[in-house]
């Protein structure tokens, strides 16, 4: 279990080095996102061009990934983001990460750049750099099917043509749907002339206390399966969130000009297109839809961002758009945000046909579909959109006022955060930019959650009113920390306390699972300290790349334009209240007014020993 290695693949030199995991790094960061972040901080210098050979791409499995521990399928992909210029980090499920571990590796670092297309093959303790000419030019489904045809029962993490063409929001894909979707991980892989990392492993993960793990897992499993919520997640999946946000008046619509959209995208209509619900490795929730249109999904994110946000209300069209984006290897969140942004800019006359080549309009399915292809191929106007938020350089300064992004990252999810203030702070401070999976205190959507329940989870002084700013820094702080911990362990957030339910797995259960599997003893404080350390290390990485307090902010529209429709009508984010909340959040983290870490803390983190 603790014997898995770090593989360092130098593509420029065509060489591979395999090293043990330094004990101190393991103890301080556990695995997955934590260790990735630390390695990234140590390996990269200030100002590295993300698409140059000097950037690195790190694939890192969680410490419990690939075990009996429920929903332990996950890994993180970390790099300096070509989309944002800050931390690039994306968490992904499926079957790849367990396979990488069975093949002997917890972390694989890609550095340099190959002269010709290559793929990295990993099997039972060995790593080879192989010729990828037969796979270059393929999209992610064809590439994976071809690898499996030629190499057997392998698992693949690959980029599509979007990654090869250095689209700044190209992703890494594994399986039919799973993606390390955010921050342009696929573009970095493409920039290294690498098509894929392919794994096959027969080396099991030795468990420290087998009977104890069997017992703890059984208890945890019964607990999760006993929740009212689990069967709903397992039959409807995330699309159920669409109606919840939409009825409230908080669904990003037409680039957030509107906040409510059609009932036709409700989960009950999506269910008609579902053939079967399936799971990732070790998953007991099974929220993945195998759809009747040849793919998997859609997730709520696709429903919102390739539906409402681009003005499309037909379920089948939405599913088709997300199937195409997945195959091309494009992040659906960035794609749906950037296309909608361009549509509005065209409506406003900020960009025109001279640049776009045609009239752009919301709700035009054919146009959205061909834009996805043009982005991936960097053809015509698609070449400009492929620059993601950096297209603002072409569109002009004024265009930035309509961009729904933070730290240059388009907002990940379809929820308009002007109403629930904690959500706003979450996307403003998340280390990789506007994203709900880093720190969103999602329980705030339960508008009637009593004060005592909130205070028990988050601490004293948290207002029960979702529209109040009072104490909301505590909700983000708690979520930030515990989500970082689950990302280190390789467990899905779906069963994590405070994400879907106030009754899912909390620190004590993570401690019990960790101890049974590895023998590592972590009390609540020590476990939480890992989460805090990860957040601080990510902050250090970002500060070195030039991040300041002014980057912890929100899209202009969320401050200045009140929500126009529905129960949330009139709500917006007050700049002064937001600023005060941000200061309180910094204080809680031990950061100063400028959002900087104390020098002693920086030294402490820098001194974690044993760089491979």
């Amino acid at each position, binding site marked *: 279990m603790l014997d898995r290695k770090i593989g360092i693949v130098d593509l420029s030199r065509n060489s591979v080095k395999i090293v043990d995991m330094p004990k101190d790094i393991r103890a301080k960061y556990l695995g997955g996102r934590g260790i990735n972040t630390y390695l990234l901080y140590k390996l990269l210098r200030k100002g590295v061009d993300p698409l140059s050979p000097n950037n690195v791409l790190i694939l890192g499995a969680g410490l419990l990934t690939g075990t009996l521990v429920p929903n332990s399928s996950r890994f993180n992909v970390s790099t300096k983001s070509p989309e944002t210029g800050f931390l690039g980090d994306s968490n992904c499920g499926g079957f790849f990460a367990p396979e990488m571990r069975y093949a002997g590796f917890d972390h694989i670092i890609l550095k340099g750049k190959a002269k010709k297309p290559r793929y990295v093959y990993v099997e039972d303790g060995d790593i080879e750099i192989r010729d990828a000419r037969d796979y270059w030019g393929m999209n992610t489904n064809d590439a994976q099917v071809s690898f499996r045809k030629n190499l057997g029962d392998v698992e693949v993490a690959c980029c599509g043509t979007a990654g090869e063409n250095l689209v700044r929001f190209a992703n890494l894909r594994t399986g039919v749907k799973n993606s390390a979707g955010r921050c342009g991980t696929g573009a970095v892989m493409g920039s290294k002339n690498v098509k894929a990392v392919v794994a096959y492993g027969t080396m099991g993960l030795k468990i420290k206390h087998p009977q104890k793990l069997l017992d703890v897992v059984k208890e945890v499993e019964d607990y999760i399966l006993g929740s009212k919520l689990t069967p709903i997640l397992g039959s409807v999946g995330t699309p159920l969130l669409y109606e919840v946000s939409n009825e*409230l008046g908080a669904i990003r619509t037409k680039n957030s000009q509107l906040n409510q959209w059609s009932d036709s995208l409700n989960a009950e209509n999506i269910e008609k297109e579902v053939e079967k619900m399936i799971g990732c490795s070790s998953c007991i929730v099974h929220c993945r839809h195998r759809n009747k249109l040849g793919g998997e999904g859609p997730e709520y994110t696709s429903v919102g961002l390739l539906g409402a946000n681009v003005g499309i209300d037909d379920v089948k069209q939405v599913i088709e758009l997300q199937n195409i984006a997945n195959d091309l290897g494009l992040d659906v969140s960035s794609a749906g945000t950037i296309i909608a942004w361009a549509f509005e800019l065209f409506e406003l006359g900020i960009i025109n046909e001279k640049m776009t080549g045609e009239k752009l309009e919301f709700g035009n399915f054919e146009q959205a579909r061909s834009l996805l292809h043009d982005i991936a191929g960097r053809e015509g106007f698609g070449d400009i959109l492929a620059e993601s938020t950096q297209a603002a350089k072409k569109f002009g300064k004024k265009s930035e006022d309509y961009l729904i992004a933070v730290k240059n990252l388009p907002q990940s999810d379809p929820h308009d955060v002007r109403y629930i203030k904690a959500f706003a702070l979450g996307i403003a401070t998340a280390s990789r930019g506007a994203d709900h999976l880093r720190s969103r205190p999602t329980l*705030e959507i339960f508008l009637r959650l009593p004060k005592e329940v909130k205070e028990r989870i988050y601490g004293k002084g948290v207002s029960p009113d979702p529209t109040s700013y009072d104490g909301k820094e505590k909700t983000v702080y708690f979520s930030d920390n515990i989500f970082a911990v689950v990302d280190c362990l390789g467990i899905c957030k779906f069963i994590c306390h405070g*994400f879907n339910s106030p009754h899912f797995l909390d620190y004590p259960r993570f401690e019990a699972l960790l101890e049974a599997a590895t023998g590592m003893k972590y009390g609540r404080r020590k476990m939480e300290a890992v989460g805090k350390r990860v957040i601080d290390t990510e902050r250090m990485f970002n500060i070195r790349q030039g991040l300041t307090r002014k980057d912890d902010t929100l899209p202009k529209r969320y401050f200045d334009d009140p929500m126009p429709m529905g129960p949330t009508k009139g709500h917006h984010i007050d700049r002064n209240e937001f600023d005060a909340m941000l200061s309180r959040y910094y204080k809680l983290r031990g950061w100063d007014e400028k959002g900087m870490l104390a020098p002693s803390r920086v030294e402490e983190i820098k001194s974690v020993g044993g760089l491979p």
Partner: protein
Amino acid sequence: MERDVKVRLRLLSSLRQTVGESELAIGFAGGSVESLVKEAGNKYPKLGEAIFAKDGSIDYAINVILNGRPLTESAMKETVRDGDEVTLLAAAAGG
């Protein structure tokens, strides 16, 4: 008892299936939103199953919107008036 407070009760998401309707017209003797919702849950057992927690309270996962205004727990004590529209929405968190 007089049933002269007429209320439109809208049932959304998973709650629709519980009574097979997305809207009910309810006659109510009057009182708070909380008592209205509890009465509806008792009258339609399948709805009750979906909205009541084990202790008989209204589950925190049920969002309640009164005339287009989302309610916090303390606002559940507000009085329902004739012609009001109350929406029940089974929420789910996550992403």
